[in-house]
């Protein structure tokens, strides 16, 4: 269940406000650790720690550019989260589609039966 583990890691990574802010910043384009640390009152090692979590979760990748190491979003990682939420919606929707049919078929009287 490689995919499952990735999703666990991805959602855990998203559970932190600083990491969400880093992703928001990277959505505008790649940035180095120094650039990423600027808007936060955090040391570079602290930011690097967050980046490591995001990289392990497959959401962020490093590019080597001479001495620079800019970070960028990994599109498939982000899209996997999107698709997963979409599937959850679809699983729920399936149940509620059945309920729609029942409600239409049964024409349940407002006062109900054995339940209050």
């Amino acid at each position: 269940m490689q995919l499952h583990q990735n999703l666990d890691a991805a959602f855990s990574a998203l559970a932190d406000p600083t990491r969400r802010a880093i992703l928001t910043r990277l959505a505008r384009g790649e940035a180095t650790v120094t650039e990423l640390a600027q808007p936060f009152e955090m040391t570079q090692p602290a930011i690097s720690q967050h980046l490591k979590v995001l990289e392990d979760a497959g959401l962020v990748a490093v590019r080597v550019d001479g001495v620079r190491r800019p970070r960028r979003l990994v599109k498939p990682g982000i899209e996997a989260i999107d698709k997963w939420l979409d599937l959850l919606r679809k699983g729920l929707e399936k149940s509620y589609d059945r309920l729609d049919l029942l409600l239409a078929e049964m024409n349940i009287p407002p006062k109900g039966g054995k339940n209050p």
Partner: protein
Amino acid sequence: MSKLTLKTEGDTHIIVTRHFAAPPEAVYRAHTDPTIVQKWLLGPEGWTMPVCRMETKPGGSFRYEWANAKGQGFYITGEYLELHPHSRIVHVERMFLPDPTPDNHVETRFDADGSGTLMTMRMTLPDTKTRAMMLASGMEHGMEASYVRLEGMIPVAQIA
């Protein structure tokens, strides 16, 4: 366009909304009458709910058990905290997979919306970590089937 919305709020909530073309009385009853619940609360294709016990009063408990043809199964237990016909249900639940998940506190509202009902389910998890786990592991009903589908879909550019 799907009628259902699922989104996160703050650090610990998940909000699901859905419109139904039936009055709140009917939708409420479809959530509190076990013979009706058993027919629809099944998640993906291929699952049935052989056990559906509900003691619909404050402090009462409920138990749902699901099974599929491959012999897999899991269950949820919970307790009702509040039942306000036909507008609101508050309960806690946990899933056994087979180990119990942390308690999920769920408030379900049924508000009149035109001639139908707007249902709003507000789930509150104990912490961000649990919510992350719940979203990642499939919060509803035998998502195994969906995993398989998801794995099949990953190479595909778009599924929505």
